[in-house]
Each structure stands twice: as C-alpha cells, then as structure tokens.
C-alpha cells in the first residue's frame, strides 16, 4: 500500500461517482461511500507503524532538475489529518445522502466532494511543499464548486466567488512564500525544511517569507481580517459546510501552521503576527457569533473564533501550547461537524434556520435536541466533554504566556472575554432553538429526521463524551503521536486529567461559564445595541465588493489606456520602443558594428536577385492601396526569398516557403473577395510622415543588426544536431530529424495547436454567408464561365503528378529535404487546385469536405507513436530505426519517426483544407451562378 494510491483512489473515485450517477441517484452515494472506505482501508494498515514512531516517506522523481518530486509523507500529524478527512468525510457522505433533495444532482455533489477530499488528503500527505501548494490550490477550486453547488442561487455564486478570490489570492502569496522557504532551506522537501529551523529563522529573507506563508494560512483558515468569506460560504449545502468547517478547508490553514511550526516558530515576528491575528480572530468571531440569528451564521462565526484560538496557541510557541493546538483541532472537528449536521437537520425538518422563529423544538425532536445540546456544551467547554479539556489547556497556556509579558494580564483577560462569549452563543444555540416558547410561523411542522441521518451526529457526539470522560484511554496516544509530528521531537509530558485542582485555568473556565450565562441573559439589549450601532458600520462584504469593483475599474481603465484597438498606434509604439532599446543597448555595449569575417564573393545573379527583392518589397509598399497588385508583388518577394534559401543551403526552408506562398495567395484571395479592392489614405499627412520616419529608422536598425551578426564568425547549437542526427535519429536530414525526433514533443504540441486552430476557424465560419460583390473593381460583371474547360482539364491532369511529388517528398524526408510538413502542404495545394479549377460540387462528389476525421487520425497516429516507445521502456516519443532488406527494392530504412511524420502530414492536410474550403464557402449569400441554377449551398 502506498500513500499516492490513497489519493489516486479518491480522485479516480470522483470520476467513477460522476459516471455511475447516470444509473440512479443513490448509486453515487454508495460509490462515494465505498471509495472513502477503500481509501481508509489503505491507510489503516500503516497506522500501527506510525504509532511506533515511524515516518513514511515515498518518493518518485518527477521533475528533478528543478527540485520538484512527487513525494508523500505520513507522520503523526499527517495521519491525524488523513483520519479526520476520511473519517468525517465518510459521515458526511452518509449524511448528505439524506440531506440532498430529489431536485439536487447527487452525482455532481459526490463527485465534487470526493475531488475536494482528494485535494485535502494531498495537502495532509505531501512531503514536497510545491506539491502541497498544488493540492492547496485544488482545494480552493473544488471548494468553489462545492459552495456554488446550488448554482441558481445568487448568494451561492457570490459566496463561492468570494471564497475563491480570498483563498486564491492567499494561495498566490503562499506560492511565493514556499518558493522562498525552499530556496532558504535548500530543498522543497519537508524533511529538510523541518530540520533547518535555525538556518531559516536566521536568514535575512525570513520576515518576507513568513509574511507570505502566513497570508496563505490566514486566508485559508479565515483569520481576521480575511474571515468574512467563511460566513458567506455557508450558502453551500449544509453537508459541505459541516465538512469545510470541521475537518477540511479552514483546517488546511492551521494544518500549515502546525506543519511548519518547527521551521518557522520561535521568533518575535512569529509570535506577534500569528498571535495578533489569532487573538483578533478569537474575539471578533466569538462576539459576532452571538449576534447572528441564522443557525449556520452562528456556527460559522464560532468556527472563526475557534480557528483564532488554535492559531493563538501556535503563536504562543511552547511545545505544550502546540499540543493544546493539536488537541483543539481534533475536538473542534468532532463537535463542529456534529453541530453543523444538527443545524442541517433542523433546517431540513423545520424549514428555517432563523433562531427568531425557531423556538421550543424540544417537543418536536427531542432526540436531535439532545445530541445538539451535548455538542453545543462541548463547544462551550463544559466539563466532562472534549471541548473542556482543550479549552482548559488553552486557558493555562494563555495565562502562563501572559505572565512573561509587560501588560501580560491583558492576554488572559481577552481570552476569558472570548470564553464568555463562546459560552453565551453556545447557550443561545441550545436555549433559543429548543426552548424559549413556541415556534413562530415555520414553513413545516418539525419532526425527527430519518434514522440514518442522525447516525453520523450520534457517533460524533459519542466521541465528544468518550474523549471528555476518558481522555487517557481514548485520545491520548493519538494526541501524543500527532504532537510528535508537529514538533518533530518527543512531545512534553502532559496530563489529560479532568480535575487538576483549583488553578488559574479552572478559575477562568468558571468565570467564562458564569459570565456567558449572564451575557446570554442580557442578550436583548445587546442585540439592539448591535443592530443599531455595529451592524450598519461593519459590513465586510460591502468593503470586499467595493475593493473588487475598484480593482475591476482599474484593470479595465488600464487595458483601455494601453489598447485602443488601433493597429497603427500599437506598431508605432512597438517599433519606437524597439528602436530606443536597440540603439541604446548598442551604444552602451560599445562593440564595433562590423565583424572580421571574410566576405563571400558577389556574383551577378545574386546581385540581381537582391535587387529584385529590394524593388519588389518597395513596390509592395508603394502599391499597398491597390490590394490585388500588392498581392501579386508579394508573390515575387516570396519567390526570391525561397531562392535565397536554396542558395544558402536551406532546401527544406525553400520547399516550405514555396508551398506556404501558394497557400497564402489562395487564403488572401479568398478574403479579398469580401473586402474593398482599394482604399484611400485615412491618416493625416503628419502622421504618415511620422510613421515613415519610424519605419525607415527601424528598417535601418534591423539591417545594421543583421550586418553586425552576419559579419561575425558565428557558432550555434547546430553543430550538435549535425553530429547527432544520424546516430541519434537515424536520418541525415537534420531539419526533419529535429522536427520529428529531437524536438518531437514540440512538434506534437504544434500540430495539436494547428488542429485546434483549424477546428476553431471551422466553428466560426460554418454557416456564415457573406454578400460579395457582383462585379470586379472596374465594374465589369463576372465572367459567366465558372470553370473554363482548359483550366479544369489541366488541373485534373496535374493531380496525380502533384500527389506523386508529395509522396516522394514525404518518403525520403528523413534523409533528404522534405518530410511530413512539406508533403502535407503539397497535397493540400494539389487538392485545393481541384476546388479552384473544377469547383466545389465536382470535388466534393469525389472527396468529402469534412476533414475532421483526418485531423483526428493524424493526432492519434502521432500520439500513439509517442506512446509506443513506452511499451519498450523508453521515454515518450523516443524514436527507433532499423535497416531492412527486400528483394528488388534493396536495402531501405524504417524509422518510427516516419509514423510520427505521417501524423504531421495528415494534420497539415486536414487543417489547410478545412480552413480554405470553409473560407471559400462563405459566398452563399451572393454571387448567383450565371445559369441561374441554385447550386450553391
């Protein structure tokens, strides 16, 4: 069994769940439950070994050159979290089965839930911190999906967006922090990071790194001032809230604090930053929880407060405080999950969550009431329940930490105030809902939920009691091993007894319990105070919305300022910028312009070609307002350029240039039909003069740079490819070997993009019919003869010859100029020629215009060739070749690269045909044939 397979099980289970949901609603729930059980079954065999003190680390090299490996870690802390995530996850699966109504899609819910579970497990079990971050971001994304599960509700969409914005921004900060941490420690592996705490704390970049990491942790665990996303996220279905608030999501933030505790803690910066945020969060959460009339709102603010408590414990920084922090993570997960489920049951069976309406439910659902009351008492910290034990440890730690500080009494005092409010809102949860008169116009008559919906709550409440009454027998071993995981040493001795005698912590507890009761008794004036003075001024959501809309305004103003949509402006800026940078760089570099390379002899033919190129280019510029003339002149320029390639030993380039040239002419002609044939100058004279100056300067600069490069001796990487082409790729045409072998992966990506572009163009052009002109530029009507016979016959005759050329170029491409790309262009041109000369109807009778299968085949062949090398144990796209002998034909060579090249060929043919044909078919709205026959599409 290994750790990665646990995570893969859950993620694969997510897909499986989505798939089985088509066979019925409940199947998804069953499969999700079984998947969670399967993951637990893989984890449990490792538990005894972790209890024996071992740390499991698994390692797969993934991207070793930059220190990125797939590595997983199972120690006490990771195991605690994995057990919480899977254990509570299983209960959530069971609960949600009864919670979701018939209108909700079960498959989608459970699929998202499992995805989220897998991402959380990934955080808990990661050894590499960059990998941890990837899972971290996955939890942000999947929680977005879960919170917005009821997509038709405005508040669900808003809450999900807010959660994603806050946690996503925090994740970005965390990425920066973790990269800095990895650079400081010299490794991204936790084993190294956790053991180099002194080095990290002494580093000059410690503070910025700490701030970034803490931003990540605080946004995730809803610490003040980022706390407001959590109450807004309760628009999610209640099972999701129960999961997010107890074992996952917000716990990821405190998990990170615990995980990096040995590496980062123990400095004043840590204490003040973490402690300040923790204390503020503790107080703000506890106070505001009391004023929420929504059951889930109360619980959400209480979660914020408890997260602040845990954060504060880690800030105190003593080993015993860390133990208390871990203990409270466990306890909070247990009672908060059960409380949310109870709130969900109440909502489900009474139809409301408003505590001003919910009263006296004891009579209607005594069983649920009993469970909720016990859990709520645990939240308040009542003795004999689990919350009491960790809260007592917390009080003791706060008191002893305060005794070292100036004005140190403030800390225990603030903590006690938070404790008072915690008791007050817990009492409100019990008294306001289950007693306090009769329900006020509820939509339904409340009743007990189905048997199995209560089971998860019962189990969790039983745990609250067991841990609270018999801590040594139940939670102590787990707590010890998890604390050892946090501290990375043996934890200090601690005593989980219920009675420690009368000490400061007990006094604080008693004060909190009594004070909480008093505050609750005075709640009505307090509510009024809150409604009149606090609530209108403290609207975190409004502040957030304001910031977001300011951000959007700024971004769109910036975009509009930079991009006015004017091509001329962009080009002037671009060329002027390039000029300034280029000239400046050259002047500051101070090198001579000319190199010392000997000049090649000049022959008259080359001179003539150069002159044709120069004058041809000038003529294109001069005639650019007469578009058809300019197009013909471009043909000349392309021709001369390909001649230059031939002369300077670039035959592959020359062949490609020639083929691309024709495809370009056809493409431009197709577009030109729908465009004005000529246009007049629109810019004012001064702007044209300015553009001319910029263009001349930029052109001169480019020419001088080319001169500087060409007149120097130049060595490049090409020697390597020249030397390795035959031994490594089995071909003597270096260009082709680079394309299909050395850089095969790039080529695969490129043909994929090409196919996508073709399909995109197809999607845009299909069914578009544009009106075209009835007459040419001089006003003469079009000729009646659509397909002159001479042209048609010659084009048909030429087809087999052209195809033969293409096959020839393809086959010998590996050793001599050619290859799949050029062959594909030649084939495409040969087929397009039939469309030109014989027309769409004639050609499509013989050759279907739909080239989608060709694209698919090409990509499939290329990918399968790449995958094929896996069968022989080589990396993706390793090519092999061999020489074979056949009678008559003689010896010949076969390389797997040729199959890959075939894929390239098919994609090129398919893309070019698809684009050109559908561009040509746009004419439907005009241009009736001379015969009057309706033979167009």
């Amino acid at each position: 069994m290994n750790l990665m397979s646990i995570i893969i099980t859950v993620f694969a289970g997510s897909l499986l769940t989505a798939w089985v949901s088509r066979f019925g609603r409940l199947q998804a729930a069953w499969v999700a439950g079984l998947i969670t059980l399967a993951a637990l079954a893989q984890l449990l065999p490792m538990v005894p070994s972790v209890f024996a003190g071992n740390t499991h680390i698994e390692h797969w090299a993934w991207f070793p050159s930059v220190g990125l490996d797939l590595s997983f870690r199972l120690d006490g802390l990771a195991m605690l979290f994995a057990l919480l995530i899977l254990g509570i996850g299983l209960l959530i699966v069971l609960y949600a089965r009864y919670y979701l109504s018939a209108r909700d899609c079960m498959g989608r819910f459970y699929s998202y839930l499992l995805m989220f579970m897998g991402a959380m497990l990934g955080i808990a079990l990661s050894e590499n911190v960059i990998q941890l971050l990837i899972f971290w971001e996955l939890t942000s994304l999947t929680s977005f999906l879960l919170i917005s599960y009821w997509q038709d509700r405005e508040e669900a969409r808003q809450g999900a967006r807010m959660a994603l914005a806050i946690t996503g921004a925090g994740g970005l900060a965390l990425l920066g922090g973790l990269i800095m941490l990895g650079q400081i420690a010299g490794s991204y592996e936790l084993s190294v990071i956790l053991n180099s705490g002194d080095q990290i704390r002494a580093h000059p970049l410690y503070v910025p790194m700490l701030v970034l990491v803490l931003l990540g942790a605080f946004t995730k665990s809803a610490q003040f001032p980022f706390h407001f996303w959590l109450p807004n996220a309760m628009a999610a279905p209640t099972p999701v809230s129960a999961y997010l608030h107890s074992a996952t999501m917000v716990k990821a933030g405190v998990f990170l604090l615990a995980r990096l505790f040995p590496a980062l803690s123990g400095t004043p910066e840590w204490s003040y930053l973490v402690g300040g945020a923790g204390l503020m969060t503790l107080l703000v959460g506890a106070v505001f929880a009391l004023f929420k009339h929504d059951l889930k709102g109360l619980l959400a603010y209480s979660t914020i407060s408890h997260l602040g408590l845990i954060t504060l414990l880690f800030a105190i920084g003593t080993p015993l405080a860390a133990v208390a922090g871990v203990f409270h993570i466990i306890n909070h997960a247990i009672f908060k999950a059960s409380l949310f489920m109870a709130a969900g049951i109440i909502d489900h069976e009474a139809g409301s969550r408003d505590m001003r309406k919910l009263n006296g439910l004891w009579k209607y659902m005594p069983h649920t009431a009993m469970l909720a009351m016990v859990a709520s008492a645990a939240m308040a910290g009542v003795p004999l329940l689990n919350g009491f034990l960790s809260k007592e440890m917390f009080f003791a730690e706060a008191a002893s930490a305060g005794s070292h500080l100036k004005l140190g009494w403030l800390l225990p005092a603030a903590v006690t105030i938070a404790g008072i409010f915690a008791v007050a809102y817990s009492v409100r949860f019990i008294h306001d809902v289950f007693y306090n008169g009769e329900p006020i116009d509820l939509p339904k008559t409340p009743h007990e939920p189905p048997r199995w919906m209560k089971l998860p709550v019962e189990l969790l409440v039983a745990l609250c009691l067991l841990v609270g009454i018999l801590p040594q027998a139940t939670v102590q071993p787990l707590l010890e091993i998890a604390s050892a995981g946090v501290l990375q040493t043996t934890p200090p001795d601690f005593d989980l007894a219920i009675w420690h005698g009368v000490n400061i912590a007990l006094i604080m507890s008693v004060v909190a319990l009594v004070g909480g009761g008093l505050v609750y008794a005075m709640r009505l004036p307090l509510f009024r105070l809150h409604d009149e003075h606090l609530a209108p001024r403290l609207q975190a959501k409004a502040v957030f919305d304001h910031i977001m809309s300011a951000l959007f305004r700024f971004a769109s103003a910036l975009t509009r300022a930079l991009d006015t949509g004017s091509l001329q402006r962009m080009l002037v800026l671009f060329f002027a910028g390039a000029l300034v940078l280029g000239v400046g760089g050259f002047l500051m570099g101070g090198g001579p312009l000319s190199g010392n390379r000997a000049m090649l002899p000049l022959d008259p033919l080359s001179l003539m070609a150069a002159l044709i190129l120069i004058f041809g280019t000038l003529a294109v510029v001069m005639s650019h307002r007469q578009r058809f003339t300019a197009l013909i002149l471009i043909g000349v320029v392309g021709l001369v350029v390909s001649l230059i390639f031939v002369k300077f030993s670039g035959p592959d380039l020359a062949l490609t240039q020639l083929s691309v040239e024709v495809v370009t002419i056809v493409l431009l002609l197709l577009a030109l039909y729908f465009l004005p044939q000529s246009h007049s100058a629109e810019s004012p004279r001064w702007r044209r003069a300015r553009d001319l100056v910029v263009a001349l300067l930029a052109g001169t600069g480019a020419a001088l740079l080319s001169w500087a490069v060409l007149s120097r001796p130049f060595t490049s990487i090409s020697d390597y490819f020249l030397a390795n082409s035959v031994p490594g790729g089995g071909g003597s045409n270096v260009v082709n070997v680079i394309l299909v072998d050395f850089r095969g992966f790039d080529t695969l990506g490129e043909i994929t993009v090409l196919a996508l572009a073709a399909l995109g163009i197809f999607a845009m052009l299909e069914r578009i019919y544009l009106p075209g002109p009835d007459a040419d530029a001089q006003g003469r009507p079009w000729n009646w003869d659509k397909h002159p016979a001479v042209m048609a016959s010659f084009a048909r005759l030429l087809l087999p010859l052209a195809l033969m050329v293409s096959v020839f170029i393809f086959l010998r491409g590996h050793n001599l100029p050619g290859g799949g790309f050029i062959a594909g262009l030649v084939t495409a041109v040969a087929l397009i020629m039939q469309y030109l000369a014989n027309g769409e109807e004639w050609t499509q009778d013989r050759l279907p215009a739909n080239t989608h299968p060709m694209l698919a085949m090409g990509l499939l062949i290329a990918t399968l060739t790449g995958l094929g090398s896996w069968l022989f144990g080589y990396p993706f796209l390793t090519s092999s070749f061999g020489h074979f002998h056949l009678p008559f034909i003689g010896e010949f060579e076969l390389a797997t690269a040729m199959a890959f090249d075939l894929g390239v060929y098919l994609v090129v043919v398919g893309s070019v045909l698809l684009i050109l044909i559908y561009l040509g078919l746009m004419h439907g709205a005009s241009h009736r044939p001379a015969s009057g026959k309706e033979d167009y599409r």
Partner: protein
Amino acid sequence: MIELALNIALTLVGLATALTFWRLLRGPSAPDRILALDTLYINTIALLVLLGIVLGNNIYFEAALLIALMGFVGTIALCKYLLRGDIIE
C-alpha cells in the same frame, strides 16, 4: 564548351528575369502582372536548372519541380479571381 554554353544561358535567363520583373512593376493591367509573375516562375525554373547543372546539385532540380507545380496553382488562383472574384465556388 559546356561551360561557355551555361554562361551564355545564365546571362540570357538572367536578362529575361530582369525584363520580366520590369513588366511586373510596370503592369499596367492585372493580367499583365499575372502573366509576368507566371513568366518569372518559368524564368526561375530555368535559372535553377542551369545552376543545378553548374553546381552539380540535385536539390536545385527539386526546388525547380516544386516551383513548377506551385507556380501553376498560384497562377490559377489569381486568374480565377479575375474571372469570377470568388475562387472557390
């Protein structure tokens, strides 16, 4: 002997190329220019074949072959445009 013949041929073809290019620039009508471009293709083919013989390099012949093929298609497309405007119909 063959060298002399090749040199004369290259000079003549070069001259023809220059004159054709002049016609391409002058025009005046679109068919003139298309015809000039097509002739330029043919001149280039001749030039490449001659150079292939001079330098003893087969690659020149293949470039010539491709120009012959592609030039024809380019000319068809340009002519079809003059004829009907819409080249694929």
